[in-house]
Structures are given as C-alpha cells and as structure tokens.
C-alpha cells in the first residue's frame, strides 16, 4: 500500500459519498446513543465509588422478620469490645414523606458527641459553626430539597410533622453544595435528637450502627462474631452495598444494551442489503480494476479500507457528539433512565470519565456487527471476474 492507493481510495470514497452518507449518519446516531448511555453509566459508577469510599465498612441493625427495625443503642458498646473494630457510629436516619406531592427526603441525624461525623460534616460544608448548628432547631438541606421547598414557599424553615402528630419548626441553616452529587441531593441533615423526634425513635434507639474494620482479612471473622452476639442482628458490609449498586446500574445499562442489540441487528441487516446491492457499474469497475492488474487481495484491501474508514469516522464523530451531550449538556432525557425521575429531580452533573473499557466496548459492539455484515458482500464484489470489464 502506498500513497497512490490512499489517494485512489479517497477518490473512490468521495465519488460515492451519497451512498456512504446514509450509512455514516445512521452509524453516528447509533454510536451516539450507545456511548451516551455507557458514558452516563461509567460516570455514575465513578461518582458512586467516590461517595462510597468514606462510607463505613459495616452497618448492623436489628432485624425483625427480615425487615430493619430500630436498633438498641447498647449494641454499640458491645461492638467496642470486639478487637479490630474502629469508628463505631450509631446513626439515625430515614425518609420523611411530604404529603401534598408524595415526595420524600432523606433525613440524617448528627450526633453532638460524635467526633467522626463532625469531621465529615465539616468536610462537606465549610464555614459552618457546628456547635451552634447542633444546639438549635436547624437543618442542612441538599440542592434538590431546597428547590422543592422553595417551590412550595418554604424559604427559611419547614414544619415537620412527627409520627406523634406534633409539628416541629426547623430552620434551613445551610444548603449542601452541588458538587457532592448523587447521595446528598435529596438529603436533610439535622441534630440527632431532632431526627429521632421527626422519624419517631425513642431516646435509646437508633436506625443502625456503623463501624469500620481496617484489616480486610478480618472482615469475615468479625461478621461471624457479630452474628453470634444477637439472634436478631443483621450485618451489611460495604462491598455488598457496592455490589448491589453495581448490579443495579449494570442491570439498567444491560437492559438498555439488550434493546440496543435489536437496533444493531437491524442496522447490520440494512448494511448487508446495501452492500449486496451491487450495481452493474460497480461490478464493471471492479472487473476493470482486475483487468488492469489488480489482484483480488488489492481489491479486498480497497473495499475493506473503505468500510474501515466509514467505521472509524462515524465512531469518532459519534463519540465526540456523545461526549458533548453527556458531559457538557448533562444528557437531557437520557439521564432520567439512570437516576430515576420518580423522586426529586436529580440535579446531578456528570464527571467526565473516559476509560479504555468503555471505548473498546463501544467499538466492539458497533464494529464487529458492521464488519460481519459487510464481509461476505465485500468478498463477493471483490472476486468479480476481470472479464466483466469486457461486457
């Protein structure tokens, strides 16, 4: 192959541009859809990993009939006695449902005596006076919560209705900045005793107890020990959470991929048809090339290069458009499939993640069916008898 070959190839491509244009447009569209979805899912996965990193390794709670019940706070003392356990944190949280619109927010309680949660809170929001925050009827809300409250004309505070029928007026002290993403969007943070009251826990109850086990080799040991402490104790470790999220997003994009397969198959059939439609002029041209001394291999090379250039061009353009769509315009419409539009509008922006796995996945899913569809038609036209040139 020399420069003359490439030159001739480009001439051929240019000459038949109208024939190639439809193929390129459909290809770009397919790659655009596919890569948008995969970009979103890998970006979400990345954010998730970032959010899960500071999360506790283990969470225990009381199970009754397989359902989480309020957990006695004494259990945390028992945890301290197990060697290898650190950062034991009793937690109070739950969902609060707003009657009028059927929306719900996540309420999280912060313990006044818990050093760890202070630090993480400080990390979350700078310029906050923790002491003042924890002693009054204050709350910190996520971006999504703020928008919702403002829409319902609660600009400074909201009256929560406790399960006992009492109203508690809680002031909005701060709004969680947008960058924390995903988990904090519909979250309300408040002092632990307030949270207990709003969610209906008594003073010696918590939702669950979190703790860390720094040595990963000890994880299964500790899990066994915990289970022998109480019969109604349930343990969840971080990997399980990670796995279930991973599975959820895999499920969502996997489901999409399977639908996408139908698209790709249809496209391959169209391609096959298109490539099989060999006009007599084309056949004659190939015959002429062969008559002029081109071997079958030369013609095959020309024809495959033609397809390869189509593939690569549409791949690059499709990915480029998807990148702009997802990471610059935040993927309108498509986003809802992944984040779930049922609850508060997630005002999440995606972190640009481009990894080899995603790029190669897109390429394989598109290029393999493409080439498989055209390989037989391309061969068929390439072995045209040189005699065709005489007819």
């Amino acid at each position: 192959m020399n420069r003359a070959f490439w030159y001739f190839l480009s001439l051929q491509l240019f000459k038949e541009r109208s024939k190639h244009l439809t193929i390129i447009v459909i290809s770009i569209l397919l790659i655009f859809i596919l890569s948008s979805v995969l970009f979103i899912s890998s970006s979400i996965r990345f954010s998730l990993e970032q959010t899960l990193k500071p999360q506790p390794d283990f969470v225990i709670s009381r199970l009754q009939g397989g359902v989480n019940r309020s957990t006695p706070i004494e259990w945390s003392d028992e945890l301290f006695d197990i060697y290898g356990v650190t950062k034991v944190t009793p937690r109070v949280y739950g969902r609060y449902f707003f009657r009028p619109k059927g929306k719900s927010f996540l309420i999280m309680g912060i313990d006044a005596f818990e050093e760890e949660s202070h630090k993480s809170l400080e990390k979350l929001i700078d310029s906050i006076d923790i002491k003042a925050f924890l002693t009054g009827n204050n709350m910190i809300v996520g971006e999504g919560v703020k928008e919702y409250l403002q829409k319902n004309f609660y600009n400074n505070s909201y009256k929560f209705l406790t399960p006992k029928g009492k109203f508690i007026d809680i002031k909005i002290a701060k709004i969680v900045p947008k960058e924390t993403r995903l988990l904090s969007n519909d979250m309300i943070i408040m002092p632990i005793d307030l949270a207990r009251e709003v969610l209906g826990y008594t003073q010696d109850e918590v939702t669950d107890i979190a703790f860390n086990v720094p040595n990963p080799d000890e994880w299964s040991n500790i899990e066994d020990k915990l289970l022998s402490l109480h019969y109604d104790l349930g343990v969840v470790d971080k990997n399980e959470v990670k796995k279930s999220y991973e599975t959820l997003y895999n499920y969502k994009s996997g489901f999409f991929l399977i639908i996408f397969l139908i698209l790709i198959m249809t496209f391959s059939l169209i391609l096959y048809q298109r490539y099989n439609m060999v006009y007599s002029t084309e056949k004659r041209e190939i015959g002429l090339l062969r008559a002029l001394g081109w071997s079958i291999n030369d013609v095959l090379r020309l024809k495959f290069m033609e397809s390869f250039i189509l593939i690569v061009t549409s791949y690059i353009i499709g990915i480029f458009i998807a990148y702009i769509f997802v990471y610059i315009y935040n993927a309108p419409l498509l986003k809802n499939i992944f984040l779930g539009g049922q609850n508060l509008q997630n005002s999440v922006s995606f972190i640009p993640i481009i990894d080899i796995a995603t790029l190669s996945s897109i390429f394989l899913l598109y290029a393999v069916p493409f080439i498989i569809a055209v390989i037989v038609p391309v061969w068929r036209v390439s072995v045209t008898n040189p005699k065709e040139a005489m007819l």
Partner: protein
Amino acid sequence: MIRVENLSKSFYHQQDESKILIDINLHIKRGECIILKGISGSGKTTLLSIIAGLDRPSKGKVLIDDEPISKLPDIFASKIRAKKIGMIFQHFNLFENLSVYENVTVPLIPSGLPLDDIYRAVDKSLKVANIYHKRSLVASRLSGGEKQRCAIARALVADPDIIVCDEPTANLDSQNSILFIETIKELHLMGKTIVIATHDPLFENLNFKSRIVPMFDGKIDE
C-alpha cells in the same frame, strides 16, 4: 511469447453446452502484430480475453513467456496482467469521474512503486499517447478520440510487452481510427507484441507487417 494450445471454451446454460472456442492453437512471436478478424459471435473477443488472462478456458492452456496464465493463482496472474499486458477496450472503459491523469495511474497503484516513479511513468505514457495536454480533464468530458488516447496511455503505463485491443475502432470516426492505426504502428516499431480483435476492414491493409488470423464459429479459419 504467447502460445495458445488446444484451447476450448464452452458456456453452460442449464444442460445445454454452447461451444464458443473449439480447439484453438496459435503461436504469437515477440514483436508480432496479430489481427483476429471475424464477425461478431465468431469467438474472437472470448479468445482475446483468455489470452489477456481475463477469462478462463474450459480446456487447454495459454502460455505467456512459458507461464500458463489461465491456471495461475490470482496473485501471480494479476501480476502478469499488470506487468506484461496492456488492455484497450472497445468502450474505452475509463473511470468516468476521475481525471485523465488519475485514470492512467490506476494500473500502477498495486505495484507498490514509490509515488515519484509512478508519476514519471504516467507522464511518459501520457506523452507517448499524445494526451498529456488534457491530463487534468475529467474523463467524462473527453471526446471519443481523446478517450481512446487516454485508454492507450493507461495500457502503456506499466510498459507492458503485449498490447491487447478489443474492437478499438468500433466507437471512433474514420479520422480517429486512422490516427489510432498510426499509434499502433508506432507501438509496433517500439517492439511491442500487439493482438487486436476487430472486424473493421481498415485493419486489412496496414502499412506495416502484421498477420491476420481469421476466425469463424469458434475456430481459426485458415
């Protein structure tokens, strides 16, 4: 140079066999000019295409420089087509939307020659065929005679020993036909072996040495 031995060619349409060429023997020496003459359907075009390696016989063989071209694997056969044979077709068969220059380049593309050598060869054959001044024109805008000269340039570009022409004057007016014969004469003087299939009476009295091989019903009629 070219040796045709016991060559037969049949086409099969369902069960019916129709014989196009029957047991042809022909020996063409280096530098000879051969006119295959016959009415249409006499098999001269089929014989020509088998000699040029464009078609395969049903029996017998064609040897070019002792190489049996009809039975060679494509890689070798195409090399012989590229290096030893220059084709001129009845309908000129140019790539209509390429320029004259690009058309002439086509046979050299698979050769793997450096681009400079290709350009040099193209320039040279454009000059020999007297079409150099129209080299950047798109082929579809050429007149009949110019197309013919472009086709000649293309046939000459790889400097082949053998020039094969199929009804070269069928689409030319008489003036251009005479010009074509002049070119053929030049090629003949350059020492090329020339094989022409035609029924044009112009070729009957050439002013240079040539051999007429009359064909009739798939046989050489001698």
